[in-house]
């Protein structure tokens, strides 16, 4: 599930890094709020724990064995946002020191494994185990289903990211520049494996560990829900907004990466008009457009990089509005829901 470098285009990898920035910011805020200065040792040990249990071989039916991620488990014990940071740290160490997952692809891997996985797993667990006492059977069942759901959401996102490469990032002759398979191939391939074997392994391990903790260390299970200080007082939106605006301004730079398209265009255009391409022109035009795309200065032509910027900014702003709006709505719902849960808890 860890994507190595070379499979993702820089556009996709960069976009997912950008998506992770607000996620890390929010996680940092929530963790600081719930754990205070205890955060550093607790999250660090949580990260080290995740790293180590990813190395445990677990026997699968049929004589093979696999590894579990344990993201849902860590989220149940430390809380979902602390798990985001712990898993990020574990993934970063794996990528840099042990070559497990790429460095440029770290943003994507964090989005799938450190963000989507623990949040999905935790909220499924919480939804299914609501109001159940700590020793109830519903807890380990809910944890197992949460683990299964979390890993499947992560696998689906991985499949989509890889599939986009095969569908969108192609050379002029149709050969793939990055991962060669399209969505119609990556999604079934990943999901068949994860809905069955891998998901069952993750869910099974999560359930077994939670059942073990119920017998031996019940406090650990009640740890997070007990002191979950939800609420968003003092959450500073300004850095988030500044970050998003900067992102919006700098994102068009990513368009530069698709430079060959203009080179091809001018040569093709010439071919259409003159009927042949003068020797060496194709090379020169490629160089020219790379250094100074002057045929597309604002107002001069409708094609090209600079002309596309206003349109890009407008669509970018629109996209931000939609994403921002839906995130706000979700946060609002979660806050209300957890406030209600707390009120019931105290009652």
């Amino acid at each position: 599930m860890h994507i190595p470098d070379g499979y993702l285009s820089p556009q996709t990898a960069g976009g997912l890094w950008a998506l992770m920035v607000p996620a890390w910011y929010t996680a940092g805020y929530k963790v600081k709020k719930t754990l205070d200065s205890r955060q550093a040792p607790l999250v660090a040990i949580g990260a080290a724990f995740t790293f180590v249990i990813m190395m445990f071989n677990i026997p699968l039916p049929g004589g093979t064995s696999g590894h579990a991620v344990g993201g849902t488990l860590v989220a149940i014990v430390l809380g979902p946002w602390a798990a985001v940071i712990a898993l990020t740290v574990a993934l970063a160490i794996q990528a840099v020191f042990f070559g497990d997952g790429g460095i440029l692809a770290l943003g994507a891997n964090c989005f799938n494994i450190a963000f989507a996985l623990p949040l999905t797993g935790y909220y499924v667990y919480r939804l299914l185990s609501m109001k159940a006492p700590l020793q109830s059977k519903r807890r380990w069942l809910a944890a197992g289903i949460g683990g299964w759901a979390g890993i499947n959401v992560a696998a689906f996102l991985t499949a989509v990211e890889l599939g986009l490469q095969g569908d969108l990032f192609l050379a002029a002759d149709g050969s793939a520049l990055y991962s060669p398979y399209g969505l119609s191939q990556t999604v079934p391939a990943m999901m068949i494996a994860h809905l069955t074997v891998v998901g069952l392994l993750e869910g099974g391990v999560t359930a077994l560990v939670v059942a073990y903790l119920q017998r031996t260390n019940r406090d650990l299970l009640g740890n997070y829900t007990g002191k979950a200080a939800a609420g968003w007082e003092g959450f500073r939106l300004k850095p988030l907004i500044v970050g998003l605006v900067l992102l919006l301004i700098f994102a068009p730079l990513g368009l530069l990466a698709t430079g060959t398209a203009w080179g091809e265009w001018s040569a093709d255009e010439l071919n259409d008009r003159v009927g042949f391409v003068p020797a060496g022109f194709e090379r020169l035009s490629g160089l020219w457009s790379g250094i100074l795309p002057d045929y597309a200065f604002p107002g001069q032509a409708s094609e090209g990089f600079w002309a596309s910027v206003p349109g890009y900014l407008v669509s970018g702003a629109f996209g931000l509005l939609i994403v921002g709006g839906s995130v706000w709505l979700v946060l609002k719902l979660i806050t209300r829901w957890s406030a209600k849960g707390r009120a019931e808890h105290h009652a």
Partner: protein
Amino acid sequence: MPERGSATPGWMLTSSGAVLPSGLAGRGRRESVIQRTLQGLSRLLQESIFSERVAARLGLLQGTDPRVKTVGLLGLLIVAALVEHLYILVGLYVVTLILAGASRISLAFFIKRVWLFIPIFAGIIVIPSLFNVFRAGDPLWTIWDFGGEVTLGPWSLGASLAITKQGLEGAVLLIMRVAVSVSLAVLLALTTRWSDLLKALRVFFLPRVFILILSMTYRYIFLLLGLASDMFTARASRMVGPSSPADDRRFAATSMGSLLGKSHTMSDEIYAAMVSRGYNGEPMSSHDFRMRGADWALLAVAALISAAALGSDRLLG
């Protein structure tokens, strides 16, 4: 394991079958999962100690300012992701080989370390994409002419099975891109001490507390690895016969659970120790890097290589 790495006795690093007599390892047919986990744990320890040794050698990259190294290698990594021509990727690969040689890493070892597993794995998973069934393209080598369109339910297999030019080009490009990326990452990991790399990360405006967490994590990974390895060794030495997969699963889960409990208690103790030494939630760090002429020169060379690679990529169209 920066400080105490070399103190680990050699016998802990060899993954001999001594822990389990051969008869116990799944009736001699295959290793038990317990033994496999133990081997994985010791391999990790071995690798990280080896990295520290290479990082202590006197070579080009070892002597470079970690900030220059991080920025330079990351820049090249981005360039390797952007370029679209195989020749340029091959050129970048040659650059990594030269850097490895100048950093006193044996080339045979470096090539083996890079190519064994990730690029070879990439080579295996691209195999289906070579064929026209998975990716349409101009046939290069027709393996089997069906003599007419063959359909399999909703899927059409086309009129022949062939390896395509597009499939082959894409596959070679992916493998080479993966190899160059892994080479750059391995160079960074092998020639930089963990503590130096962490300080260098400050260049990227990472919050101090995040760097503190990273450094603590790295240190405690080895402690937890030791704990886990003790648990597995203890289990292996108590077994008098092969265990069932269900038993092994239960054992893996209970050891995870108990490791989780131990880690949690330990984090409490560590926090208490930190507080008693004056920690107030704001980590401090010292900067002791100084850029030398050679560092600036290497940074310039990295920028030049990046510009040349991107420029010639444009030139090739």
